[in-house]
């Protein structure tokens, strides 16, 4: 009996010291000059612009990755072709790549000066690095695997019976997908979308490399936090952090709402 309380104390103590107390401190510090000061700090034009940019990145990257994720999961689970195993392995690659390396990789391909196709794009008036397209690409890269990883097990689980039943009832490929397969995997997709969104919101390293960090230009919410902190505007940094932390809690909430539905299918 005693050992039970000792284990509980150890586990919760570890979580408290590593997670609970530090996160609580951000909230306390953000509001130490009053809620008004914190509010002012996250409603400056720079802050608003930063959150707006983050919003745009999420709105572009998440749907694209979701579409890719579903197509890729279908290919891996439902199709037989050369390179299927390779595709399955490659999808996980972004999990093993440092965000900084992601940034560097994009720089090397799309960099304006000596990238592979950057100079050519630049001549045609398309700028990727130090602007939104590069930051969106970076976000897509780091959050690429989430939807695939969530959808693959669900697709395996539901099997092909329902799809075959739809086929014998006359449904063509698209009809089967939209009426049978997609509804069956919808909670898996939703869970993947939540994880993708969380990652897209919070990406720092990769975006940091490709953004050029132009305050009021290419500065996202996470870059804004760093910038404010480096410039000793602690209230600004903490207040923006609180907004991001609240979004993280919303993510956890969404995960908890979706998970049981996903398990039930």
């Amino acid at each position, binding site marked *: 009996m005693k050992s039970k309380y000792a284990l509980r104390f150890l586990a919760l103590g570890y979580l408290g010291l590593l997670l609970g107390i530090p996160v609580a401190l951000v909230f306390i510090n953000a509001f130490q000059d009053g809620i008004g000061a914190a509010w002012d700090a996250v409603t400056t034009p720079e802050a608003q612009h930063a959150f707006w940019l983050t919003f745009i990145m999420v709105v572009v990257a998440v749907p694209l990755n979701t579409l890719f994720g579903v197509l890729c999961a279908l290919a891996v689970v439902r199709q037989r072709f050369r390179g299927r195993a390779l595709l399955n392995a490659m999808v996980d690659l972004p999990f093993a790549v440092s965000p900084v390396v992601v940034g560097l990789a994009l720089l090397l391909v799309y960099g304006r000066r000596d990238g592979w196709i950057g100079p050519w794009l630049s001549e045609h008036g398309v700028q990727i690095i130090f602007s939104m397209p590069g930051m969106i690409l970076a976000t897509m890269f780091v959050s690429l695997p989430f939807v695939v990883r969530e959808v693959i097990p669900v697709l395996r689980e539901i099997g092909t019976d329902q799809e075959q039943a739809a086929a014998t009832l006359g449904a063509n490929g698209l009809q089967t997908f939209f009426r049978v397969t997609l509804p069956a995997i919808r909670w898996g997709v939703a869970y993947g979308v939540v994880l993708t969104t969380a990652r897209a919101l919070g990406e720092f390293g990769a975006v940091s490399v490709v953004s050029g960090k132009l305050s009021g230009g290419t500065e996202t919410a996470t870059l804004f936090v760093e910038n404010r902190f480096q410039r000793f505007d602690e209230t600004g940094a903490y207040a923006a952090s609180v907004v991001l932390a609240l979004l993280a809690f919303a993510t956890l909430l969404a*995960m908890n709402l979706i998970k049981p539905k996903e398990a039930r299918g």
Partner: protein
Amino acid sequence: MSRAFGISGDVLGRGVAMTYLSIVALIPLAAVLLESVDGGLDTFWSAVTTEQAVASLKITLIASLIVVLVNAVFGTLIAWVLVRDEFPGKNIVNSLIDLPFALPTIVAGLTLLLFYGPDSPVGINLAFTRASIVLALLFVTLPFVVRAVQPVLLELDREMEQAAESLGAGKATVFRRIVLPNLTPAIIAGAGLAFARAVGEFGSLVLITGNIPFKTQAASVFIFSQVESDNPIGAAAVSVVLLLVALVVLLIFGWFSKRALRHEE
């Protein structure tokens, strides 16, 4: 094999998936690989063997190793307490485990700095020390082992433990000889993911470690500094080493995890 979606739809779907994956991830990664050997293998070698590069890689690897070991122990402990123990608020604690996945890494670094930095309310100042690297990495890798072990522990056949108890084994013996061997594959798998994440981590290190070369500069931060000082070959070379380490570790841990599972088929 299902023909439900039709041949042309299948080909189109996987074509789109592979093209997307290539543009977003594979081609940029290939660019890093090529850039690292752009000046020949000698250049690559001298780039990764500069004193600063070696020091940063060493710091990253040692810190990651410590982090994996701590995670293996505390991750298993937390999973155990979350599955086998009952206490008020357990569900909330369980949801909060995923917070490091949902919280932007720059915010994670900031929260740790508040509690373990110069203004620490309890007077523990780890900022700009090597311990701060371990701390930040522990924070961001917390969920891996917990989330890998939890489902296995839930599924574990309690009758196996009861059988061992009826044969005279004490609680500690039951854990060591019955429970732990069954959890090992999951612990190893979770530890592998944690290691891969740790070696590439960037955002949470930026604010708390101070990035002092030879002392607290991790490999990812070193790469970032090389990008900033316009040394793409040096950055790419260390990136390749980092990438290889992550992949090799994932392979090795995956192999061990499978090997440990081999009796269970």
